[in-house]
């Protein structure tokens, strides 16, 4: 297997352009967590013409709702949740400068088109590998919506967070390409 590509977050266009569907990546830097409830609130703020609690430019959002951390620990188990539930909100955030998403499962056409149009990237982490992924998270701090508990927005500092590129800026889609290779039925 080819070596994993190391990328740093926040992301810039040059780094994104190097990524292709199927590449393994190790992300180091800053990521923000948000899932269903946080996305809903962000979009409600935008609809009301208000400012978001974070600047999305260049950032990666990781779709995760971690388990509570034990006393003295940084974070609990923290694997990806199903990204498709965020599809309704994502294009709007990409327009505001969001550059990367990490989750699991496929995205809809609107998100895939938006990724191409605005130079973004969608990556998948291994669903259920929550205790393993946790090891790459070195710092976690709630920056908004503490009342949402596991769904609060957290700022994470990560080192060598393992992910796989699913949708790249060239229209590549790992789910289509990968399954095509191994399908034995029409």
């Amino acid at each position, binding site marked *: 297997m080819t070596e994993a590509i190391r990328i740093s977050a926040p992301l810039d266009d040059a780094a994104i352009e190097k990524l292709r569907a199927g590449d393994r990546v190790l992300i180091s830097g800053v990521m923000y967590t948000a899932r269903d409830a946080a996305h809903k609130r962000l979009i409600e703020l935008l609809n009301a013409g208000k400012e978001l609690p974070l600047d999305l430019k260049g950032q990666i959002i990781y779709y995760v*709702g971690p388990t509570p*951390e034990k006393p003295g620990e940084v974070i609990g188990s923290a*694997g990806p*949740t199903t990204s498709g539930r965020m599809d309704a909100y994502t294009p709007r955030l990409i327009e505001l400068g969001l550059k990367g998403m990490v989750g699991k499962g496929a995205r809809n056409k609107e998100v895939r088109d938006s990724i191409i149009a605005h130079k973004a990237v969608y990556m998948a982490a*291994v669903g259920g590998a*929550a205790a*393993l992924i946790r090891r790459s998270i070195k710092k976690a701090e709630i920056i908004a919506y503490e009342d949402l508990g596991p769904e609060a927005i957290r700022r994470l500092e990560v080192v060598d967070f393992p992910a796989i590129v699913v949708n790249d800026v060239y229209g590549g889609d790992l789910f289509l390409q*990968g399954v095509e290779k*191994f399908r034995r039925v029409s």
Partner: protein
Amino acid sequence: MKQVSVKDITKKVRDLCISAACDLEPDVASAIRSALDKEESVLGKEVLSQIVENFEIAGREHLPMCQDTGISVFFVEIGREVLLDGSLEDAINEGVRQGYKEGYLRKSVCHPLKRVNTGDNTPAIIHTSIVEGGKVKIKIAPKGAGSENMSRLKMLKPAEGVEGIKAFVVETVKDAGGNPCPPIVLGVGIGGSFEKCAILAKKALLRPIGTQNPDSDLNSLEQELLGKINDLGIGPMGFGGRTTALAVHIEASPCHIASLPVAVNIQCHAGRHKEIEI
């Protein structure tokens, strides 16, 4: 009569919630390891080895293997000679409350419309049955939403028959793609009524992987479906590969002459299930 204390049930349920989240049962662990040996896809192998490493870390460090520690589903068999000294439902819910708090598990249960978290992972989903004897058997199967959301139920026409069942099961897995965290286990309920087939499908998931269905017709249907599903090429996490499902388990029950209910309950690779007897 045999007296069983509900306090004892609460304590056992508390411990079961925590151990189910952290320690993968040997049947699932060995099925994943053997899938890793056989997988041909490079990315598929990478995914499976991360999954193995993950459940090893979780078991060793007493961490939840998945952050989605699920909604708590119980199948409870109560011996007809058992006398309980309080409410079974309250005892189980109290065990869940304590287990999810003290085990640092994620509370993932909310009001269906207001979406406000209940804060303690209750109420649990509890299926009870009265059996012979003087014991209480409690099976727990915490269920994450990633795979549960991809599950389906369909009332087929009897004319659609076995072919219709096969087509529905395979289509359900195909449409689910990488969402339910493959490699998956499939619980299929055939027959009964609308609600009965769903419960059969859930129950089928509790059968240990690698055990034969005692009904030889269902056993061969399970093998045929497993082959068809793995021919889809979805593979670990949907990245393409040979291992889409680890097993297909079927439970069947007689149904109305005009009906053919079929339910497909999908379980992710973190097939958590534990049982104890009191």
